[in-house]
């Protein structure tokens, strides 16, 4: 029997690991560091995972533009050295739609959270999926409103506690990957901060997919979700996430009841369908003879012959 280690005690003899190399620091706005994320937050892991997926997908970083709404996860684009719109709560996908239509050559990535995209932005989420517009959405689902101090969200598990659910959450949560799949997205996956390799692979596939890609990553918020739900430390939270995880292929014979407390991970959709901005380009070619005009705001004269 090994004594359980009190996680708050630091063993003096413990040899601190050397600081890991940070190969992705080149993509960050170093002048904005340190960031605002809490120790143990999953956002850092996910940023790393994103860059791994991006490099694997051979996406040119210079061509990436990011859009986000409001919340902890929506602060991510502000630390990344690319064009970024940090917009209003829940509306990131509508800004991203305008940006992508205006310049379909950009690789537009949306960082969002469970409150941002599933609650206040739920309508924009299902319509962006329905249009199959070529956006890659990384949804960091931590089951809580972190930035405002721990209120329950539409994905908070039944029975979990939050500052607005002091007697436990009575509502049934949304399953985001399943929701977005039903709405028409062409690539949908769910992973957690524990399965970074799989998540990176899905981000790679999502970036390559010509259509609406939704990668939900279940993440830990030790500060609010953990503290209110008897999982104060990041390790405890990640243990809980790991133990709750079940692969989608193993769920076929399981009832809804059996799956109630599980996090189903894997790829939910991987298909191809006509893409929204492609359709607009085709319409433009038929009526205008060319793809849609880029950077029209900077033009002093418009091609009169074409008009």
């Amino acid at each position, binding site marked *: 029997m090994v004594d359980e280690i009190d996680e708050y005690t630091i063993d003096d003899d413990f040899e601190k690991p050397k600081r890991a190399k940070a190969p992705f620091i080149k993509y960050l706005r170093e002048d904005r560091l340190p960031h605002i994320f809490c120790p143990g937050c999953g956002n850092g892991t996910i940023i790393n995972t994103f860059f791994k997926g991006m490099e694997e997908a051979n996406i040119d970083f210079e061509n990436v533009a990011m859009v986000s709404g409001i919340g902890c996860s929506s602060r991510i684009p502000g630390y990344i050295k690319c064009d970024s719109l940090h917009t209003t709560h829940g509306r990131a996908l509508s800004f991203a739609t305008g940006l992508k*239509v*205006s310049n379909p050559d950009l690789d537009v990535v949306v960082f969002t959270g469970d409150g941002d995209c599933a609650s206040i932005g739920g309508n924009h989420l299902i319509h962006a999926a329905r249009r199959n517009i070529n956006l890659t959405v990384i949804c960091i689902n931590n089951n809580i409103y972190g930035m405002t101090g721990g209120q329950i969200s539409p994905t908070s598990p039944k029975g979990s506690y939050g500052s607005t659910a002091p007697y436990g959450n009575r509502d049934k949560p949304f399953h985001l990957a399943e929701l977005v799949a039903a709405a028409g997205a062409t690539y949908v996956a769910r992973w957690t901060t524990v399965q970074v390799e799989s998540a990176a692979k899905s981000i790679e596939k999502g970036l390559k997919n010509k259509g609406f890609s939704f990668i939900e990553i279940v993440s830990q918020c030790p500060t609010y979700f953990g503290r209110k739900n008897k999982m104060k430390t990041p390790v405890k939270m990640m243990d809980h996430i790991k133990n709750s995880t079940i692969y989608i292929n193993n769920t076929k014979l399981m009832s809804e009841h059996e799956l109630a407390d599980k996090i189903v991970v894997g790829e939910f959709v991987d298909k191809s369908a006509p893409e929204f901005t492609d359709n607009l380009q085709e319409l433009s070619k038929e009526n205008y003879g060319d793809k849609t*005009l880029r950077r029209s705001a*900077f033009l002093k004269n418009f091609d009169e012959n074409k008009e």
Partner: protein
Amino acid sequence: MVEKLFIQGNEACALGAIKAGCRFFAGYPITPSTEVAENLARLLPKYGGSFVQMEDEISSMGAVIGASWGGSKAMTATSGPGISLMQENLGYAFMTETPLVIVNVQRGSPSTGQPTMASQSDMMQVRWGSHGDYEPIALSPSSVQEYFDFTIKAFNLSEKYRVPVFLMTEESIGHMREKISIPKSVDLVARKEPTMSPDEFLPFKNRKNATNPMPAFGDGYKVHVSGLTHNEIGYPDTNNPKTHAVLVKRLCNKILKNREKITSVKSEFTDDADVVVVCYGAPVRSVTTAVKEAREEGIKAGYLKINTPWPFPDDDVKAVCESAKDIIVPEMNLGQMVHEVERVFAGDAEVHLLSKIGGELPKPSEVLNAIKSVGGN
């Protein structure tokens, strides 16, 4: 070659947008503005532009802002209920200095009100509707020709000052058909690109009463655009009182300190007028008839037509109405712009509201009666 057409106001607006270089429209159907969207859905693909019907007005405004940062001249069109939904993202557009044009074809309100009837009840909504301090530009046409001309002007002002610009019209002008002339070419203000390198360029620089250049996403400037209080680079700096004060004052001053360059008015018979009717939008059509009739009856009446309700043309109104003892302000609401006129005169002249709600224009006879009752004796 000038092309002559007999068309509806909302169609003239769509044609004006195309002429102005608008190549992106996002919107949601709403009476009485829908014809703007319908015409642009037909026209934009012929000019290399994109039309997107969004899921609501909230997302329409978001898409227009996104498209503007993507490098397109972008617009949306709606009516009062739609503007209510757009206010949140409009605030973002003011905060991030995003050029775009919003058409508001006003209908009877509050709430769903009178979809097919005219009003001017959103004049304060567009001034103060989103939370916070900001200075919008609004243009108000009185004819189908002006609706076309002002649409182009709206895009030009929007690009020049990096600010959202409203076209405040009413159902009456939106659905009215008149002859208009479409010139072959018009003067356009193109967006100013940064000339500095990305390392030196500050997209939100604190320049005195001047507008910063604006790159498009993908140009290599790697701009961070945030609705949070931000510094000159664009980085959030929310707890620094000075950053906030400097930013918000700059956003307001770039409009207020250029007020005389932005505003425009038209006046007739005001030199010796005892009574001046200060008007804007569709009621101008009734006022011109009434003032001419008053003059025929020997009454010293004149009128001042405000083309740009926002920023309010304080100096023009003051100068033109100097000799007037009485000012009449006809409005299709219960009194909104009249408060601005009262503020400008501050007791120097009697300001009278001629209010008409219900959806119909004030009749020339009603304006004439008002002129006679205040000072025409």
